[in-house]
């Protein structure tokens, strides 16, 4: 404990600063940092180094090399720089590396050195070259600002949504400004530049000269300027060795300091501690071998730099890395200060002490505790310990603080456990990602600002899928936000591994993702397709949808996914449909009955032509024929079109070896043509009638000859023709013709129908004529129909047929048939006697 505050350096009366080592770097740098272009992303992000950037020779050995390392110096990527000379490097908020070239082109690389895209900062730059460039971060994303050879500024506030803004000219600017920076105020990016003793503020409309209030006289030039992380504060370094610190709006001065060093600093970082209760604003200035922390105090803190170092501004401090070490310099947070300050009597400090004594089994523990309790500050003490634990870097110290908090909690009745639990969880996560192998040295404040979601994204970006999943599971994040999302990313990454076979990738994906809800297979398939791996895209969902649809595996994951999956299949289907050429698409469908039937249904309603192509592709001639038949009814108006459609259909049926359908279709073509002719010659409506109805219409119209011709042409069977004529003539009530017809030859349908039809028309007289001609089996029925019960009875008795007898009997009604009924009864009795 005594030496715990050894690395604390007081600045002024109230603030302490400490610097501790994050990692010892083992990146084996051959060059000095000063020989490289360096860019390090905030929030413990990666470091990019471009070696030999300024060499002009073309020899391969001295070509610039772009290396990307994690914050702990683990190599992530290395590539030979083959494009033009680079002016500046920077990281975007998404951890993409932006390389601004002299010709104004900006090349975007991923964390692993994979080229993403490029864009240009405008044509003007092509001639004038880029002198300098800055990459800055706003709440909208990351922006790029460049200074051209013509001393003009161009900026884009968001590289994701590129809109170039050319800033107005600075009047009378002949040479490059001595220093400049990007300010971001009211959501608009401005540029602040210094020319000699003057400061200018450029916005998109105008250029205005500004003067910082309370600036010491005698300044002839500004050498450095630095803006805080939040764009709220600004620091200016002048050639007189004077540092001005104030708000970024240049309306208020906060403090000033004179360091009496006139050499231009290599780097300057301004930060305002992000916590609201912070007392201090500080500026860190670095020269070759000297690091100075300056604040609102007459003295400054000075460190000696053994090596060439680079400063990375962070939200709550500054990271300093060199060839061998990576350190973090920050203001000691209030909670830690309270607890660890020498001779502190803060409740947290006492509690920590109490806990230590308790572990030593000393009764002093009780004394300390009592002291806190007497002051009624136990709650505060516990809170202090918890908070301080968050700000500690060493797990040991975290543990002892948390132990103290936990100890204190025992003596409190109602202390809400959330803060303690969450801190434990957060620290575990933080310690995990701070690990040397992961290399994301986040502080607690940074982590809270970044949010867990973004941290997970960053782990995914570094392809640390297992760790990300473990964190999700540990924090019990909802699957859709957590595990599923990561698995989906993993799968998307997996499909991009070109050296693994499609089969293996698809299987691996299915194994891992099989049961996870909320994973969009369509996205994965689309990604695979995007990398030109169509086959794989198909396999991904085929494999998977088969395992679900065929029930070869129990549907453990449940219906919702099943349904969603179906939708997924559909999405992929349609996606592929739009992307692939027809042929490939249909071939794909072929092996997927479920998808195929879905798609067919869809086409039937929405894209008829596609349906045809689908059948064509499959050589499904039967369905193709049906398709054309349907078309001949639904789509075509003109008779020629309909016949043509039918012809196509008939051809298809022949191909399908469905002779019957083909013949039927051909008959229909003939009939259509004929009906057309009939309409022309006879008038009236014939089209779309069936053959039967056509003939009937002809007979009803008195065209008997034509009707018979038609019947012969289409080989209408006799029976049908007789039925047809019988019905038609009866409808006409042309009894004469009917009789003639009945005598033309022996009726193939018997004569009972004649009787029936006459009775239907209530013509008993005609009916009786035919009743006599009805064959013996149906005679009784016929006689009953015409109402000749007596004769029917005679016939029935003659036939000795029990069924017929009872039938007649049932028709005997009232008195008129009384005699007949008796007769039947007698006949029956007789028959029984026999």
């Amino acid at each position, binding site marked *: 404990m005594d030496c715990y505050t050894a690395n604390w350096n007081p600045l002024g009366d109230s603030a302490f600063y400490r610097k501790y080592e994050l990692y010892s770097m083992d990146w084996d740098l051959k060059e000095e940092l000063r020989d490289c272009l360096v860019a390090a992303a905030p929030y413990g992000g990666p470091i990019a180094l471009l070696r030999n950037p300024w060499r002009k020779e073309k020899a391969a050995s001295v070509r610039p090399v772009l290396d990307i390392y994690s914050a702990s110096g683990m190599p992530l990527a290395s590539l030979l720089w083959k494009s033009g000379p680079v002016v500046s490097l920077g990281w975007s908020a998404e951890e993409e590396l932006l390389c601004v070239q002299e010709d104004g082109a900006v090349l975007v690389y991923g964390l692993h050195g994979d080229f993403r895209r490029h864009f240009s900062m405008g044509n003007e730059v092509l001639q004038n070259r880029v002198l300098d460039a800055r990459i800055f971060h706003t709440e909208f994303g990351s922006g790029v600002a460049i200074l051209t050879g013509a001393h003009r500024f161009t900026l884009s506030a968001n590289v994701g949504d590129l809109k170039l803004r050319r800033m107005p000219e600075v009047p009378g600017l002949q040479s490059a400004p001595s220093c400049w920076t990007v300010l971001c105020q009211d959501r608009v990016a401005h540029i602040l530049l210094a020319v000699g003793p003057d400061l200018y503020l450029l916005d998109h409309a105008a250029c205005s000269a500004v003067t910082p209030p309370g600036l010491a006289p005698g300044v002839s030039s500004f050498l450095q300027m630095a803006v805080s992380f939040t764009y709220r504060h600004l620091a200016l370094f002048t050639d007189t060795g004077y540092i001005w610190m104030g708000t970024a709006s240049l309306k208020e001065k906060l403090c000033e300091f004179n360091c009496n060093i006139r050499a231009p600093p290599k780097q300057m970082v301004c930060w305002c501690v992000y916590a609201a209760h912070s007392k201090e604003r500080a500026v860190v200035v670095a020269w070759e071998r000297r690091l100075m922390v300056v604040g609102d105090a007459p003295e400054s803190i000075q460190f000696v730099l053994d090596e060439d170092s680079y400063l990375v501004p962070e939200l709550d401090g500054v990271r300093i890395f060199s060839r061998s070490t990576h350190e973090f310099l920050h203001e000691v947070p209030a909670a830690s200060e309270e607890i660890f300050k020498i001779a502190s009597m803060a409740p947290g400090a006492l509690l920590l002490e109490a806990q230590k004594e308790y572990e030593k089994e000393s009764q002093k523990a009780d004394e300390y505790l009592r002291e806190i309790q007497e002051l009624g500050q136990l709650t505060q003490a516990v809170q202090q310990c918890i908070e301080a634990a968050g700000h500690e870097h060493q797990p040991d110290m975290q543990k002892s603080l948390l132990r103290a908090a936990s100890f204190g909690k025992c003596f409190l009745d109602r202390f809400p456990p959330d803060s303690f639990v969450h801190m434990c969880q957060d620290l575990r996560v933080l310690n995990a990602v701070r690990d040397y192998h992961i290399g994301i040295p986040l502080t607690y404040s940074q982590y809270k600002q970044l949010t867990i979601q973004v941290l997970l994204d960053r782990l995914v970006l570094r392809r640390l899928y297992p760790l990300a999943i473990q964190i999700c599971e540990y924090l019990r994040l909802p699957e859709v936000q957590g595990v599923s999302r990561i698995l989906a990313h993993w799968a998307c990454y997996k499909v991009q591994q070109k050296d693994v076979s499609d089969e293996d990738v698809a299987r691996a994906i299915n194994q891992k993702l099989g049961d996870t809800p909320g994973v969009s297979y369509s996205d994965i398939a689309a990604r695979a397709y995007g990398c030109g791996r169509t086959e794989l895209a198909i396999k991904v969902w085929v494999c998977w949808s088969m395992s679900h649809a065929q029930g070869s595996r129990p549907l453990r994951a449940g219906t919702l996914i*099943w349904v969603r999956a179906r939708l997924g299949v559909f999405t992929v289907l349609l996606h592929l449909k739009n992307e692939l050429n027809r042929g490939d698409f249909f071939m794909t469908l072929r092996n997927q009955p479920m998808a195929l039937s879905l798609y067919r249904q*869809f086409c039937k309603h*929405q894209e008829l032509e596609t349906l045809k192509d689908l059948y064509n592709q499959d050589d499904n001639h039967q369905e193709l024929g049906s398709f054309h038949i349907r078309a001949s*009814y639904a789509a075509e108006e003109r008779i020629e079109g309909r016949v043509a459609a039918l012809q196509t259909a008939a051809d298809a049926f022949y191909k399908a070896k469905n002779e*019957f359908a083909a013949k039927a279709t051909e008959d229909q073509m003939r009939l259509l043509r004929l009906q057309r002719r009939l309409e022309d010659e006879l008038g009236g409506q014939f089209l779309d009638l069936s053959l*039967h109805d056509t003939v009937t219409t002809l007979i009803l119209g008195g065209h008997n000859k034509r009707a018979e011709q038609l019947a012969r042409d289409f080989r209408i069977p006799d*029976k049908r023709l007789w039925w047809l004529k019988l019905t038609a003539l009866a409808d006409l009530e042309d009894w004469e013709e009917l009789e003639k017809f009945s005598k033309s030859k022996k009726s193939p349908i018997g004569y009972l129908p004649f009787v029936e039809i006459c009775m239907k028309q209530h013509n008993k007289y005609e009916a009786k004529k035919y009743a006599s001609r009805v064959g013996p089996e149906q005679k009784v029925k016929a006689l009953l129909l015409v109402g000749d019960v007596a004769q029917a009875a005679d016939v029935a008795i003659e036939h000795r047929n029990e069924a017929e007898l009872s039938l007649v009997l049932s028709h005997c009604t009232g008195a008129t048939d009384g005699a007949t009924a008796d007769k039947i009864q007698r006949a029956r009795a007789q028959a029984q006697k026999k």
Partner: protein
Amino acid sequence: MAFPHRPDAPELPDFSMLKRLARDQLIYLLEQLPGKKDLFIEADLMSPLDRIANVSILKQHEVDKLYKVENKPALSSSEQLCFLVRPRIKNMRYIASLVNADKLAGRTRKYKVIFSPQKFYACEMVLEEEGIYGDVSCDEWAFSLLPLDVDLLSMELPEFFRDYFLEGDQRWINTVAQALHLLSTLYGPFPNCYGIGRCAKMAYELWRNLEEEEDGETKGRRPEIGHIFLLDRDVDFVTALCSQVVYEGLVDDTFRIKCGSVDFGPEVTSSDKSLKVLLNADDKVFNEIRNEHFSNVFGFLSQKARNLQAQYDRRRGMDIKQMKNFVSQELKGLKQEHRLLSLHIGACESIMKKKTKQDFQELIKTEHALLEGFNIRESTSYIEEHIDRQVSPIESLRLMCLLSITENGLIPKDYRSLKTQYLQSYGPEHLLTFSNLRRAGLLTEQAPGDTLTAVESKVSKLVTDKAAGKITDAFSSLAKRSNFRAISKKLNLIPRVDGEYDLKVPRDMAYVFSGAYVPLSCRIIEQVLERRSWQGLDEVVRLLNCSDFAFTDMTKEDKASSESLRLILVVFLGGCTFSEISALRFLGREKGYRFIFLTTAVTNSARLMEAMSEVKA
């Protein structure tokens, strides 16, 4: 006459809760669009909606005007339009045309689409393709179970049959699973599950998954319904294709019962107006005759009329006080009964007029011949004559299908000639109908191998029973399609008739088809319930081509009361007929069970055939 239930028959669960649930959900959805709005309702949803929420309820929730979704431009002037539709692409296009017309006219209104029972992705995609996805908000009204009667729940999805059995579309299966899930959350888990058919199995598995996802909710509950039986329509097409002769079935065949109610035309009401009548257990007259064979109904009604008259006559000789009592208490009931009685008598007369003709007798005779498998030639020529005379396209088709299924497909010669005749009679577009029927397995051609069955029946007569079984096995493994004849023999579907079958006092379920045939579907259910499994029915299952799709799932029965074990939920996927319902009600009375029916829709032969027909657009 009407058979009372056995005294120990279990009480049916109260299904009116389902209605309340659906109504509350609909109101909630309507309230999501506050203020006055016009409601566009799809024609198919109108009757079901009417059973859930009447116009005044809709008005209470600020529905201003009601329109039917049809292919006409809407004249609505409201600022908010709400569409209540089935998830069909056709509807999406209608909505899109409406919205786009508004856009052209520079009008902005609020649009809300409520899909019932669920939305399909394809619909949303069409909306997107039409460019209006952002303009409309979509919701689901998970209204999938309409209690039509105390023991009959309908999903009112007639399209299920065509979509699944013809087009192979499996989307509705999810709806079925959701419906089952709803039932089990409301009425407790089902301890015993049986099923047959591919769709049944899929629906069952899906539903089980739903249960697992939300486990805990139903676990601790006492089951109210002891058994559930799922059955695909294609397991038994035969029953659905037969002419119905039970009163309720006949009314359905003749007048078409729609969503539990029927429109009686002027010829029935003996006035000049049509009358919409709700047919369910609340109609006391109907309740007594619904399950009766038609030949008994008339006698029953006249008896009833006489009783009624007697009750009316009682008022003679009453004193004033008694008269007052009579008027205030009995008269209303009597009048009501009187009205219903005259309606049903009217309906009966109308049916008699249509059905007691010679034709109908012949038709029934042919059907019975087909079921029993004799005089096939005669039946075939009867069907041919039927077609030649253009009696009715749907009826002709039905007979052809019945012939095909009972005979294992038509012999090639008949297949051709019947189809030719049919096309000549009813128009060539039915070529497509035939193609549909073949795909669904309803009307097929005998494969050359199938003539073996004829040989088989001859051979099997010559050898011992045991050997015959083996031969049947051998033969049926050669035959591709299901073999109705063999199943019929195995399950004894054609009762042996010694003398007249007394339809007044039915002996078995065959009474619903005049004693000629026990419905296959009901027999299967009876057999499985008796055995509590498919054990011993392997042969039948194989003949039905359902070897992979017959399943049993029993859980421990310790919680189920003996009462609940006599309640059986039968789920028909693809529709069930009133004859089947009557048959099972009869079975229930015999055995002390109560059956509850859940069907995708109530169907009959005509509806099945229409679903398969292609009509000119």
